[in-house]
């Protein structure tokens, strides 16, 4: 079963508006990451927040993490048409030994209208 579930599944906004996506997960994590996927392309890493962090910023991105609620949010401020993509959260879990594995959520499809 998926570790992460994004909400909403799809989001449509106007250019210049802010976009907020949420991710919920089930078990304890080492960190939580957000990836972006443009249509027909591979995933690109956006930002990582560790389990002992509550908020992190990178350019127009702001990520929060609430480990008590097992949830995270990704805020994209002042959105642009080029931000149109699918966004995935992924949790890093240790499966024993030296191998950690990323467990991906189902994604939020963001459409930014010009």
């Amino acid at each position, binding site marked *: 079963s998926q570790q992460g579930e994004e909400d909403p599944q799809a989001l449509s906004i106007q250019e210049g508006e802010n976009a907020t996506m949420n991710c919920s997960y089930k078990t304890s994590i080492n960190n939580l990451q957000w990836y972006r996927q443009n249509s027909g392309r*591979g995933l690109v890493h956006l930002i990582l927040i560790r389990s002992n962090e509550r908020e992190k910023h990178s350019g127009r991105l702001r990520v929060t993490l609430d480990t008590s609620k097992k949830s995270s949010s990704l805020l994209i401020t002042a959105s642009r048409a080029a931000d149109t993509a699918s966004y995935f959260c992924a949790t890093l879990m240790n499966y024993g030994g030296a*191998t950690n594995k*990323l467990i991906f959520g189902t994604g939020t499809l963001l459409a930014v209208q010009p």
Partner: protein
Amino acid sequence: DAGITQSPRHKVTETGTPVTLRCHQTENHRYMYWYRQDPGHGLRLIHYSYGVKDTDKGEVSDGYSVSRSKTEDFLLTLESATSSQTSVYFCATHRDGMTDTQYFGPGTRLTVL
């Protein structure tokens, strides 16, 4: 993108035929991963490798095998393709000692008729 290429980029095949997908990386990364992406499921881990000849199963490994005879190449084989294996397949790697950020290839779209 850590110099990751996948081949072929698109393939159409028939049920019951064997299919091999190739992932090639130029960064000498030790860890490599194969995922499949399906609507409503996100990305799911099929197999991964932590070195030459060292591989292990992921979440959805049934019907798939892998091989890693060289650091730069990680092959995913569908021994007898089924329609349920129609999907987009992604390869990924990460830098040794840094499991945080994975770098993804461009994907292979496989259709099994």
